[in-house]
């Protein structure tokens, strides 16, 4: 007979699955998400104390990320900004800390870009298990990723412009048009990036597909020029699809078989 279960249990040295670094980085992300949520809530309906709270939360997130990166550099002796995701995590936290909280109907490009970077961070942190083998240290990769981030940032900026334009429509036509155009350029850049990386112009990534579908809905609403219920409905549908694509696409992708290609 072998050892009894309690005896085995006594001999097993339990390893902590979660280390301090994970907790610090997780806290930074949680703080960042809270800041972004508050920022969005304030955008939709003004909250008196939101600006100060977002700044504090953003600064806390930035400090946690900086602490994590410094500790990793000192303890693990790895270089700072080892991966692009480190850079994006720090940059998005810092941008939220510095983002002005614009009033309703005014999209803040800094906040929108921070939101885009936050949405992109887990995407870029995901390593493809299979080809292509991405060399994260190449300048080309950083430039392409930055262009894509700007494209997504433009999506979010237009999305916020759309929300704001419900109340102050005419004043925001130009910003709205520019936002929609930038989104289009963002998708073209995404397409060019996919071509350069994998030789195909469109990878069937559910995140990008849903965001593009949302963008097309906003474009269709803009083309109708009805200014009424139909245009508003299409805008809201488009915004919803873009949000689902940006933040819920990963969840959708979990149901996909043969999944290595899903990661960017």
């Amino acid at each position: 007979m072998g050892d009894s279960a309690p005896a085995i249990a006594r001999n097993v040295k339990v390893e902590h699955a979660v280390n301090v670094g994970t907790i610090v980085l997780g806290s930074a992300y949680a703080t960042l998400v809270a800041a972004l949520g508050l920022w969005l809530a304030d955008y939709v309906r003004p909250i008196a104390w939101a600006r100060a709270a977002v700044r504090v939360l953003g600064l806390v997130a930035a400090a946690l990320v900086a602490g994590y990166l410094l500790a990793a550099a000192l303890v693990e002796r790895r270089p700072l900004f080892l991966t692009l995701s480190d850079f994006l995590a720090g940059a998005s936290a810092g941008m939220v800390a510095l983002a002005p909280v614009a009033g309703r109907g005014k999209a803040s490009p800094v906040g929108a870009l921070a939101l885009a970077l936050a949405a992109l961070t887990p995407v870029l942190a995901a390593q493809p298990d299979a080809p292509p083998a991405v060399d994260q240290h190449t300048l080309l990769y950083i430039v392409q990723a930055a262009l894509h981030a700007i494209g997504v940032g433009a999506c979010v900026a237009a999305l916020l412009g759309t929300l704001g334009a419900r109340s102050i429509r005419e004043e925001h036509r130009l910003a709205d048009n520019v936002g929609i155009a930038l989104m289009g350029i963002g998708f073209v850049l995404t397409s060019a990036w996919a071509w350069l990386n994998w030789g195909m112009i469109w990878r069937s990534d559910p995140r990008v597909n849903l965001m593009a579908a949302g963008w097309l809905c906003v474009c269709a609403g803009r083309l109708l020029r009805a200014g009424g219920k139909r245009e508003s409905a299409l805008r809201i549908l488009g915004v919803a699809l873009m949000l689902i694509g940006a933040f819920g696409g990963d969840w959708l992708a979990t149901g996909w078989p043969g999944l290595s290609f899903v990661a960017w």
Partner: protein
Amino acid sequence: MAVHSGQPTAPMLTDDRAGGWERAWDFLTSSRCAAILLLLTALVLLLAGIFPQAPATGDDAAAQLRWLAEATTRWGGLGPTLRALGLFQIATSPLWRALLGIGVFVLLVNAAQELWRALRYATPDTAALPIRAQGQRLAEGDAARVLAALDAALTQAGYRTRTERTGETLRLHAVRAGWAAWLRFGSAVGLLLVAVALLLSGTAARSETAAPGPGENVPLALRPGWSVALADGAQGAGWPVVLMGPEGEPQARGVIAPQRPLWAGVLTLHMTRTFAGVIVSATDGQGTPLPLQAAGESSAVGTLFLRFDEDQPEQYFAAPDVGDTIRIALVAASDRSAPAFAFQVFHGMDIQPSREGTFSGEAVTTSDGITYRFTAGRYPAVLAIHDPSRYPLWLGAAIAIACLAASVWARARAAVVQAVQAEGRVAVAYLASDAETERVIRSAL
């Protein structure tokens, strides 16, 4: 729009494009039609976002079929229907092709419309004018003086004007930045090129995977007579490759790496991954090279190159002259580290190996006086793509973006104003291409 009732009534400038075919033409060139197409495209993308899409796997049809079978099973009873509808491969589905076909037709009609409009914009009439505003007014005084005042106001606002008389009717044509009408034509042509390229891409694009070893020329079925070979000297993550033409002459030479393709006119070479490989040679006691024969090959060569991956982790070869059989197995491999191998040398019909060990990098082993040299390394797998649609695609995208961006700053504006003198009063009617032009006309009236 302001309408003053009373006599005499203003002679109406009418849009006479309201017939049957004209009505269809108007719908095809309308914003409503464009919005419907955009919504249909959004629907297809939504489906592609909800249902998993088969990954492109080069020329590996078996891998794609395996993937499709797995995806079909996951969706249970609905799976076969979804697969039959092409919802797991939207990019090649009849739904997407049909939508692209309709899009090409509509864009063709729009391009023709914009071309016609751009050509006629220099001398606008009611047929060429995109009507966004129209109205009528009654004014006191002389028709010629009323039109002269309008002419002055429009000229001051930057419009180029021309007046013509037909009987009792005076007609004033005004155009500002008429050249900008070509931007709309350019946008339509750009989008048309993109749609045609996407339509062609599904049928014309071909790809093929090649895994050349050192000193090997791997023929490409995509281009008969063409082949790809590795050149000497890997540069970090990059590999120098040479694309050879039908006469054996180099067509392109350069370094490929992840995200760094080699463009060679009709072909593009992408590095998709690396695979583990071993170069093997053997010599006898006097240093004379021995021929080696890989399993499944009919002839022996002086130097063997063996490929390894997850599907083929072990390889056998023989040294026929001395009766040795050698097994090499991949022990550890990752894209970012040197591969490690285990080897066993069997002599004659022996079951037990006469020599065995592991190696990573270079290794030499001797068995019964025969010296075997192994050199392990990583080599690039190359995806060769022949896609003639890529040129119209990027050209179209560039034209569309440039024209759409330029049209934000420069917009063609035009108006036609008609004045008729009757009983001491002037009946004025106008058609304008936009609200700003209408504002200039109304302020002058």
